[in-house]
């Protein structure tokens, strides 16, 4: 009986660790979703593809022998630059056409990158080079790998940086102003086009960072990899309260933990059904998301 209890708690801790690591990835992608939504009210369904692009930039950098410390920022910048180009060419011309055309365009952009990737790179999954040797630390029955620690730490650091940027810099102030009222912000002399580009760049570079971290965690990258994490990150953003930065992180972590607990303690067949059931329940109780009412800080 006692032994069973020890097993139960160590299993619980293990699933929580796995869930937090997976949830951190969702959180990093969800941050970009939530930022772009906050500033131009666009649900950018192509966001998962920026994550894929980041992963591939990282892959090619590492394959060419670049050290991880250099490949990581290069991948972030690469994903960010692609996002700026997409914003300028695709989203900007239709910005005033209403929300539905923008949404459909975003879906089209997402498919464009998925199939462009399959055409250019090939659809078969590629093994991500092992940049740092993954070490497993064991504490009794509980295990944690160095990659999991890196993922959680990176997510935390990037989120703090973002929080500082939005709340304590001039650019952040301009972003908040643009989000609050674009026309008024323009009248105040803020170059809102530039601010929107910066928002896209930051959001996508976070997704790019998530791409490299996932490459290190699962050791595989492929052109369709953005589809499902992109969808789940979108749900995470809604769950936390779309447009709210800490909400995206909380939403991502809740989703990751819920999935892993279902797999661990219930039947894995129902993983998505039960995990999403929980989400529906939370949204029924708090329709604006977990942080929807308490904080109204939009980006």
């Amino acid at each position, binding site marked *: 009986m006692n032994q069973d209890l020890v097993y139960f708690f160590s299993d619980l801790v293990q699933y929580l660790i796995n869930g937090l690591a997976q949830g951190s990835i969702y959180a990093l992608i969800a941050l970009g979703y939530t930022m772009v939504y906050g500033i131009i009210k666009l649900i950018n369904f192509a966001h998962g593809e920026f994550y894929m692009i980041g992963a591939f930039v990282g892959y090619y950098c590492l394959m060419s022998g670049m050290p991880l410390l250099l490949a990581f920022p290069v991948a972030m910048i690469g994903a960010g630059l692609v996002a700026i180009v997409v914003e300028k060419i695709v989203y900007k011309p239709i910005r005033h056409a209403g929300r539905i055309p923008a949404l459909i365009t975003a879906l089209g952009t997402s498919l464009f990158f998925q199939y462009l990737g399959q055409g250019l790179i090939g659809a078969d999954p590629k*093994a991500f080079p092992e940049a740092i040797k993954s070490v497993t630390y064991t504490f009794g029955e509980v295990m944690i790998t160095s990659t999991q620690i890196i993922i959680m730490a990176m997510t935390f650091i990037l989120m703090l940086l973002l929080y500082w940027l939005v709340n304590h810099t001039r650019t952040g102030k301009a972003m908040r102003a643009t989000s609050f009222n674009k026309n008024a912000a323009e009248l105040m002399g803020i170059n809102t086009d530039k601010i929107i580009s910066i928002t896209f760049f930051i959001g996508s570079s976070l997704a790019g960072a998530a791409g490299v971290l996932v490459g290190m965690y*699962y*050791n*595989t990258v492929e052109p*369709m990899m953005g589809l499902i994490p992109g969808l789940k990150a979108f749900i995470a953003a809604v769950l936390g309260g779309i447009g709210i930065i800490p909400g995206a992180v909380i939403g991502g972590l809740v989703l990751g933990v819920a999935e892993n607990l279902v797999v661990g303690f219930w039947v894995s067949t129902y993983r998505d059904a039960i995990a999403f059931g929980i989400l529906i329940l939370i949204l029924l109780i708090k329709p604006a998301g977990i942080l929807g009412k308490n904080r109204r800080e939009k980006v």
Partner: protein
Amino acid sequence: MNISRRSIKVISMMALPLLFSTACIKKEEVEVIKTAEVTATAPAKKALSQDEIVIGAVFPMTGAIATYGQESVNGIKMALEVINKSGDLAKKIRLIVEDNKGEPVDSSNAVRKLINIDNVHAIIGSVASSNTLAGAPIAQQNKVPMLTPASTNAKVTMTGDYISRTCFTDDFQGVVMAKFAHETLKKSKALIIVDNSSDYSKGLAKVFSTEFTKLGGTLLGTTDEFTYTQKDTDFRSLLRKVKRQNPDVIFLPGYYTEVGLMLKQAKQLGMSVPFLGGDGWDSPKLQELAGPEAIKGNYISSHFSPDDQDPTVKSFVDAYTESFKQKPGAMAALGYDGMLVLADALKRAGELNHRNIRDAIAKTAGFKGVTGSITIDAARNATKSAVVLETTPAGMAFKQKVAP
């Protein structure tokens, strides 16, 4: 007053869908009449081209099981070279390759396109059983012969008499691995991890569990307790649960993309039990995804081993390696054999129509291919031997051959 008004409202609301449904029925009737007229006046099928033979191929050229499609088509193209060079067939074969991306929906669309637009003589494909099962009913309805070189799920050829295969079924493959686990590896506590989105995986799991318990082994849990779906990447929590059960062998009938990741994560969790699988593992990508350490000491059943010293196999392996700079996997060999069997049937069919081609395929007996001697039985399946291979960092190593 109020009540009656409300009841009128209710009645009208109830009547509304009724109205709609009668309208729909009328429309349907009209359409039925129209199609009846069309079929009465026009011939049911376009005549097949008599100048050349058009073969449609449906394979996953992109997507998570893309190496299967690529290898299969490489094999088919090699076979076509042999056929066209030998001049056994008076007409040239034209191959139309359709990519189904490894998805059932795209498979049925591809089959429909090949039949309605390209008017093919026969269809070869696909690999994943879920894909073939999606396309086969359309081929059957249109009475176009469809030959799958690699789909092993038992249900595939039950679709109808126009669907046949040139590989063995999971009823055989599952038994081979259950016997191997119990008799050769001397394991008694097995656990099965199933890919819930694959007919192939579920079918193979069922056969394995029945046979393993029949041999006297114990099955931990059921076949739908430890599951995942295609495109999953994180198996750590699932593997933790598996580890708790303490099995001494794990049967994992999946496809190489997920299997590679799972093997790697199992190794990181310190699991050292051998994993067994089927031909779904047989891809050069597996080694790359799992890494050199996690790949060691696992076993699979498959159709063919490139190490086989048989002269037919050897010359095939040499020719393939020279053309494609890579050793052939099982799918390349199956594609090659499938195309040769089809060409052989075309040679014997006489006048080229779908019915004759189907009959000729069904009469295939003792055809000597690189994956063994192929005889199509009454249920349109091939009875063939299987090989057990050991997964090593350098590739699949031959372990034993099992006769049917």
